[in-house]
């Protein structure tokens, strides 16, 4: 069983007052394994939020099907098992943090004793224990995001969907969210994370899917997607044609920056030592050698730009 599964999911928005229909999601096939942290990436307008809205039952698909933990998306059974932090939300600001959580606990049909215990736990987890009696209107944007996260995990859901959870947070707040994600992962929960902060996704996620124009263009584990491809910046006393030629025999791409520096891209991480050897054998004087694994950001940009061409 998948935590999330979609088959041919499609959403077309038809403007009421004429105009062209907009295909927001186009035959989306997605499988999210249970117990993983899944990053859902894509440029603005790729259809990420629409997909999430279909998963939680707020938007009806035009075609295709979606299941959440084996139940049809949007069903009461599915909703019971998921927690959701929306990208844009507003809480009733006359409530205190504790009252807000109590309200959401009741809406989630939690038992009063469990609710009391969980309120303490989640407030501690998101670092708002000392502000439990403060009204939401007194909270900063970052604190509101954290109380939003608290309400999403309050009923101990099996799946947590986070739509841009770190957008309003400072680095400390982001670290707190990462810790919450790790805590959920350790407890066997599935986290579905939609974020533009690719470095955050890279640090938190096991699996990633990249969405563009409503379609999945890449999907897999981070290790699979960032296939050991490495970029190496080599500094020499002088870059000679012999050295360039020697590197070109190993590397996929050789790009001189100036007379002393050259950037080399190799397919496999294990090829990096070969580069050093090649430079020395070609008579080069090595000054510095900096290997860098391809980042998720590089992969994302390459994928989206490649799609656009």
């Amino acid at each position, binding site marked *: 069983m998948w935590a999330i599964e979609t088959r041919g999911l499609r959403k077309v928005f038809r403007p009421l007052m004429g105009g062209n229909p907009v295909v927001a999601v186009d035959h989306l096939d997605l499988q999210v394994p249970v117990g993983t942290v899944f990053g859902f990436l894509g440029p603005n307008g790729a259809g990420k*939020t*629409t997909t999430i*809205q279909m998963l*939680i*039952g*707020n*938007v*009806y698909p035009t075609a295709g099907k979606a299941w959440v933990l084996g139940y049809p998306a949007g069903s*009461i059974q599915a*909703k*019971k098992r*998921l*927690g*959701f*932090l*929306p990208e*844009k*939300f*507003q*809480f*009733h600001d*006359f409530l205190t943090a504790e009252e807000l959580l109590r*309200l*959401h606990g*009741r*809406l*989630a*049909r939690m038992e009063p004793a469990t609710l009391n215990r969980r309120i303490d736990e989640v407030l501690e987890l998101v670092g708002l224990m000392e502000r439990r009696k403060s009204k939401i209107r007194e909270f900063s944007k970052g604190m509101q995001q954290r109380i*939003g996260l608290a*309400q999403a995990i309050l009923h101990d859901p099996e799946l947590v969907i986070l739509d841009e959870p770190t957008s309003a947070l400072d680095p400390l707040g982001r670290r707190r969210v990462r810790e919450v994600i790790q805590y959920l992962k350790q407890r066997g929960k599935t986290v579905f994370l939609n974020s533009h902060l690719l470095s955050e996704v890279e640090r938190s996620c096991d699996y990633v899917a990249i969405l563009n124009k409503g379609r999945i263009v890449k999907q897999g584990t981070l290790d699979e997607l960032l296939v050991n491809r490495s970029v190496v910046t080599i500094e020499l006393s002088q870059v000679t044609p012999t050295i360039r030629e020697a590197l070109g025999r190993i590397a996929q791409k050789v790009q001189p920056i100036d007379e002393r520096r050259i950037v080399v891209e190799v397919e496999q991480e294990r090829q990096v030592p070969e580069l050093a050897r090649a430079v020395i054998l070609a008579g080069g004087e090595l000054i510095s050698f900096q290997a860098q694994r391809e980042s998720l950001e590089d992969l994302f940009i390459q994928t989206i730009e490649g799609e656009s061409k």
Partner: protein
Amino acid sequence: MWTIVMLTMQEAMRRRAFLGTLIILAALYGLTFLPKAFQQALGGSPKSFELGVNLMILFGVDIIKFFSSVLAILLCAGAITSEIERGYLAAILPRPLHRFEIFLGKWLGVMLFCVANALVWTTLLWVSVALQTKPRAEMWHALPYVLLYPMMYGTVALALSSFSSAPIASMFTVAAGAFAYFADHFLRPIAAFFDVKLLQQLVSLSEWVVPMAVLKRLVQARVDTLVPPGMNDAPPVGSEVVLHFLNPPVHLLDLVYVGAYLLFWLLVGLFIFQRRDVQ
């Protein structure tokens, strides 16, 4: 659903619309003591004092009708689409609730709030009368029918709010009320006295579209004894048919129609909210 009901009532209490009506009604409350004040200042017979009290009760009931309706419209018109746009429903909709529970919870919350308000205002009216003369019960007899006003306008506004923003939903509801008022108070006498069939049909149609005149008659039947002598007498001209058109009798079926009307709008709102995308 009760959590939504309670939340809606809490929200309503913090709305400026409620505070506004509270301030206006507090200011108007002083006017309810005018009969006694006039009697003390200008003298006058007990009969004219009684007449003053009766008129004050009639106006009081009208004011409760009006402000309950305004409050219901303002609270219901922003209950669905505006709450979606402002992001209030974003964290509530993913909870294990059916959409109909949210819709009915909001409806019930606003209705209970309006009922509580009308109860308070009616009590204040009763206190004012009791302080000036003996306690009177007519306003209590009229109250169940007075409550149908906020129920009717609130339900229409809520149904419209399921697909339109608060200004549009309230504007259309007020326009419907204005149309019904105009048809009953202006078109009806013209249609009756000049015996214009087309106008008479239009007035009858308006009662089906917005049964405000029906509600007016239901309330009137409970406060008829307060109406000054001669005010409701038949005019000296016109046939029986015309007179009947001018002042139709109250039937139990009228109440059934109002019930069906409320149910219709409730179902319309529910159907639209159930089917629409929310994002």
